[in-house]
């Protein structure tokens, strides 16, 4: 194990736009909204930024390639801007780049900004297309819900869970996120929903119905990072520091080798284990105060809580139904509404999760403020269960 990044980087300021169907705004306005808040929160002048990381996932439908869109939109002082894309982990990847720059000493203050403007395609759901030219010749004519629906099929098969039990559990996942999202003024969906409505919603890709799928949203989020020493020297209180950053990427064994049964995320198990080690966490079920995980689909969240080593394999659905992850449960998960209700502008999502952690640690989370959180974990999963990138970040109070 490498030496790791624990407590080498502190969050100096953060910003997050309102998420949702932002018909009136382009990516530029969304970026500025998050940036203005982050700069003000950090209390710095833009000239103090040494480097920037810029994340998007489907930039072909909005800003296009390179670091130029961020640099020109925000009129950055001709600093390095690196455009990163790693599917749904893009936001956390931008954060990882900025943190590593600060930890290495190459930058004193760096910014990570993610944006996605998805609602300019003319149709619902994620922008389509079938990927690389060879993939187009043989990959199944699938969608994200169809790929994640198969996680549900395989999970039921692997653990002998009935369709009815699983449907109830994943409905609870979505119900809980709607309850939480209702308390978040920046969330895309701010309305609590009845359990019956969730259970009886139209099918998108069986067994996933409409409420099992997260929103397709526009939005941006940003984090400005520095060292704890510089933060302290700037007079910052309640400093939040980075404890671990890990990323695990599929190498094709799940999709091509018959050793994987389809019921779990191989990469998430690896990334989370390494992250706990990097952060010095021995018993995550006892030590982690809150989670923001990648609930692109309700079943993804349920299975992820097993792969993050919180629920036992095959028992996550019971923890969910027992309210373990509810706002008033043992470890609240998606206290901000999650991808489900806060929304999922892909390149911004990882940073949005960190934004909620940051607010919670600083006691600034308003109606959804948790009591005395100390350690939080964020998680992103890009791709499909059979082939994906899985990123985790652990942040907490700097003590």
């Amino acid at each position, binding site marked *: 194990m490498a030496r790791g990044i624990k407590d080498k980087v502190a969050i100096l300021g953060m910003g997050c736009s309102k998420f949702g169907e932002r018909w009136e705004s382009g990516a530029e306005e969304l970026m500025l909204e998050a940036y203005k808040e982050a700069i003000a929160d950090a209390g710095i002048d833009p000239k103090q930024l040494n480097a920037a990381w810029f994340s998007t996932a489907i930039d072909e439908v909005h800003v296009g390639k390179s670091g130029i869109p961020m640099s020109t939109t925000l009129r950055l002082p001709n600093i390095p801007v690196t455009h990163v894309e790693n599917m749904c982990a893009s936001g956390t990847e931008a954060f990882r780049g900025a943190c590593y720059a600060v930890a290495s000493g190459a930058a004193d203050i760096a910014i990570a900004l993610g944006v996605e403007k998805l609602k300019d*395609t*003319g*149709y619902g*759901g994620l922008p*389509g*297309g*079938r990927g690389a*030219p*060879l993939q*187009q*010749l*043989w*990959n*199944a*004519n*699938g*969608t994200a*819900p*169809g*790929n994640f*629906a*198969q*996680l549900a*099929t*395989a999970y039921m*098969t692997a653990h002998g869970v009935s369709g009815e039990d699983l449907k109830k559990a994943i409905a609870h996942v979505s119900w809980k996120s709607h309850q939480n999202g209702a308390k978040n003024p920046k969330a895309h969906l701010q309305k609590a929903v009845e359990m019956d409505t969730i259970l009886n919603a*139209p*099918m*998108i*890709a*069986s067994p*996933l119905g409409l409420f099992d799928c997260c929103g397709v949203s526009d939005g941006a989020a940003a984090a400005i990072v520095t060292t704890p020493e510089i933060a302290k020297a700037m007079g910052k209180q309640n400093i939040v520091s980075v404890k671990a950053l890990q990323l695990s990427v599929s*190498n*094709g*064994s799940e*999709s*091509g*080798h*018959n*050793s994987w*049964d*389809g019921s779990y995320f191989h990469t998430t198990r690896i990334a989370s284990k390494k992250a706990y080690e990097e952060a010095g966490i021995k018993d995550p079920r006892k030590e982690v105060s809150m989670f923001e995980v990648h609930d692109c689909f309700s079943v993804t969240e349920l299975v992820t809580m097993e792969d993050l080593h919180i629920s036992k394999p095959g028992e996550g659905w019971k923890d969910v139904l027992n309210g373990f992850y509810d706002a008033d449960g043992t470890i609240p998960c998606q206290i901000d509404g999650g991808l489900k209700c806060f929304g999922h502008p892909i390149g911004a999502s990882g940073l949005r999760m960190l934004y909620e952690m940051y607010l919670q640690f600083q006691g600034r989370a308003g109606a959804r403020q948790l009591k005395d959180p100390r350690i939080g974990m964020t998680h992103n999963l890009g791709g499909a269960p*059979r082939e994906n990138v899985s990123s985790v970040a652990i942040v907490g109070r700097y003590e």
Partner: protein
Amino acid sequence: MVGIVAYGAYVPRLRLNRQAVYDANKWFAPGLRGLAKGERSMANWDEDSITMAVEASRDCLTSHKAEDVRNLYFASTTHPFKDRQNAGVIGTALNIEQNLLASDVGGSQKAGTSALIAGLNASKGGEPTLVAAADKRLTRVASNTELNYGDGAAALLCGTENVIAKLVGHHSVSMDFVDHFRGEDAEFDYGWEERWIRDEGYSKIVPPAVKAALAACKLKGSDITHFIMPSLMPAVPKQMAKICGVGEGAVRDLLGANLGDTGCAHALVMLVDALETAKAGDKIMIVAFGQGVDVLVFEVTPENAKLPKRKGLSGWMARRKEEKNYMKFLAFNDMLPIDKGMRAEFDKKTALSILWRKRDMIYALVGGKCKVCGTVQFPRTPVCVNPNCHAMDSQEPYNMAGLEASVMSFTADSLTFSPDPPAYYGMITFPEGGRFMADFTDSDKEQVKVGAKMRMTFRIRDNDQMRGGFKRYFWKAAPV
């Protein structure tokens, strides 16, 4: 002795209920009532003459090695490509590119028999020759042809070893009798009056040709045990048989009741039907009409009874799903301007250079087998997928098209664009090793389950209508 050494057939699973067609169109064409009984075969949206010919060829090659085939003739009047060898696509799908002479035969309803005669001649020297025929003809709404036609294919392997039906003789005449035609730019057939076709066409062209063939074979009409003569006029084959001295009992059923006329493939489809039950010594006569006539005479040998079992026409006919939704028939044939939504607009341009590099993978479903650890995988890649191996440049080609797979996980997706929603797809695994996320076809809710056995089938994946209809083919999984 040259003759047929193996046969195969293919019929799409869907059978369009003719009453349903009539019910939709009777307001306009009440005269079609007499045809409103039984059903016709109906290709799925992802089937065309190439895919059906591939299936019939695979059925035919159940008992023989594909790589021994030296000549491949593909007869159709609905070749998906005007310039791009259609038979070559079939050859690549059968993974038999090397040492193969492939040819397309078309242009007439006797293309199937003309290809068969060419195939028999080509295999006289012992070179196995595969003759495949398939048609999927578009028809006008509320036309006779809409009810009479069917979609289907047959394949015959010609050769000199273990002949099941030896060629006794054949005779052809070619004359430009235009009973119907389909011009270069036309989608549909244009036909002349049936009575004229019967009286001036069949009645004057067929009997002399049949008599010439019988004379060449030193046979009498009454020697014929099976008289195969496709025709859209059911009484005509009986009349021709009578004129030629062929017994009425020898006239084969036209398969009109639940298949329909499969175009230039139909003579060969009917031949497969006959061979499935024919006894040693039976004499089979085929009469195929179309700008002249081809007549072939075969004698069934004792080898026919020893031919290993295959699905054949009866097997594919038994796999059946009734379709009463006439709108679906129109939509599958692109004759209904249905609102497909924006997800149907994604560009389907094919990188032809990639297709060439990966043609064994895409067209023949050839994966890899690692020489170091033995792991079978799809696709074949530079580094072995086995997490305990990861050997480099270690894989040999491994053909997976004939392997049975099982469903590991699946979904029914209503979001993605499919001409037949919801789209079924899922992870399929091969017991030999290897897996991939495959589109399913010919699938129903009741059949698709975890653990269900699946058979790989060559299908259309996309139709690039922006570029004149370049069809992308790949393999899909269908319930066994």
